[in-house]
């Protein structure tokens, strides 16, 4: 097809090219600004997500619920069978419940005898999962609680059983949780019976690997992995999962949290534990008074014993 060379679009083409070039440069500039000054752009992003995603709320929840129902639909087919099975399991559970209650009472008595004090400030806020990260290369979810509810960056989130992730990015009404499987997630953990410290670093697979184990010989598949609280932000002792050996002979962690059904997440309010910064100085003899030092020494030793568990 021979083109007519006198149409007005032939004259506007160079102008158009310059405009498009300018647009590309502007986009790349946004990228560079983000690379250089990431926190500010991320704050803008959080504010944008905070505005946009909750406005989809009315549609997100019903569709998610409908999909989940569709997922469960096949179980309706054998509902009688399932009912029977549940009854049997309930019977067993009753026995277990009795045992658990007895153990709980025993545990409370022992704790009382030992005068152990659990951290009374460890409370939680529960949020509903609003949205996914939307990208196959990012593992994060959006909760419907935010700065309004007192959520802060870095707090731990759990589903009913295990640690799920860490708050990263808080808007007014939403907060983003970076899951343990995301490639940006690094959590200090302890492997339980041997007490080995390690770093759980997500790599975008379902079972993240353990890095920097001091003595890998002491760690066996099946060991419990709990958070170690080394960073100072996470509380220690939260269940993470079990050690498993991957096909590549690396030690990985099978996570306890059920990542396929993240509906509600608990955000643990962790308060900064008191730091012990000084190696400890000599206590000079008090200028005069005799009864004072005893009163001061007692809480100080109690802090040193309980602060770094």
């Amino acid at each position, binding site marked *: *097809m021979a*083109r*007519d060379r006198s*149409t007005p*679009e032939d004259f506007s083409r160079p102008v158009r090219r310059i*405009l*498009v070039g300018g*647009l*590309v440069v*502007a*986009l*790349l*500039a*946004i*990228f560079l600004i*983000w*690379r250089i000054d990431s926190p500010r*752009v991320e704050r803008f*992003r959080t504010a*944008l*997500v905070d505005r*946009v*995603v909750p406005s*989809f709320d009315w*549609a*997100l929840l019903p*569709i*998610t619920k409908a*999909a989940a129902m569709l997922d469960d639909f096949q179980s309706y087919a054998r509902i009688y069978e399932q009912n029977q099975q549940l009854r049997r399991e309930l019977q067993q559970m009753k026995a277990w419940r009795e045992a658990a209650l007895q153990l709980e009472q025993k545990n409370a008595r022992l704790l009382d005898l030992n005068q152990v004090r659990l951290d009374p400030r460890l409370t939680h806020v529960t949020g509903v*999962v*609003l*949205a*996914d*990260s*939307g*990208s*196959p*290369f*990012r*593992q*994060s*979810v*959006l909760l419907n609680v935010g700065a309004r509810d007192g959520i802060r960056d870095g707090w731990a989130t759990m589903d009913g059983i295990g640690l799920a992730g860490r708050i990263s990015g808080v808007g007014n009404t939403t907060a*983003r949780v970076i*899951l343990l*499987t*995301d*490639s*940006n997630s690094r959590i200090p953990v302890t492997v339980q019976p041997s007490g080995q410290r390690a770093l759980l670093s*997500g790599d*975008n*697979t*379902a079972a993240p690997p353990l890095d920097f184990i001091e003595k890998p010989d002491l760690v066996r598949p099946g060991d419990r992995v709990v958070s170690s609280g080394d960073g100072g932000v996470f509380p220690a002792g939260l269940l993470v999962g079990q050690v498993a050996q991957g096909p590549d002979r690396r030690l990985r962690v099978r996570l306890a949290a059920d*990542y*396929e*059904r*993240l*509906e509600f997440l608990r955000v643990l309010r962790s308060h900064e534990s008191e730091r012990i910064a000084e190696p400890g100085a000599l206590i000079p003899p008090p200028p005069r008074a005799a009864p004072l030092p005893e009163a001061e020494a007692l809480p100080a030793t109690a802090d040193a014993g309980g602060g770094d568990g």
Partner: protein
Amino acid sequence: MAEPLAAGVWSHRALYVALAGALLFLRLLPLGSVAGTWPGPDLLLCLTLVWVLRRPDYVPALLIALVVLLEDLLLMRPPGLWAAMVLLAAEFLRTRSGLTRELGFLVEWLLVAAVILAAVLGYRLVLALVMLPQAGLGQTLVQALGTILCYPLVVAVSRAAFGVRKPATGETDAYGRRM
């Protein structure tokens, strides 16, 4: 013939934004995507390229840039970079929309496949240059392949459902200009 086309430009632009919003919405649904599964195709990229080759006036450059930038921001990608890549790919194809009209669909598909691969690899190259962590090469290539395989499907749907097709030779728009 001219009347529906003239009225169609703005309504199709709105339709493009609505489709992009719907795709974004579907991807944000918390349906429990487990880490390590294979990524699906990038349908927004596919839709953009199909429309650019069919009717370039439906998807102006500014609209593409804004829509993909919004996607970047909501999907926690580095903002701006993928938008720039998509814009470059779309503009490259826009200047060649006349060429593909004369050649067959297979050639067009091959051209689009090359452009998608170039955009993905360029994206990874820039990420590597500024030393950002990125997803595995295998996963990215699988996603690009999925996008390429979806292309004929998106072409068919665009034609059947939204009436986006290549103008016939000698067809004119509302102002009597040749398209």
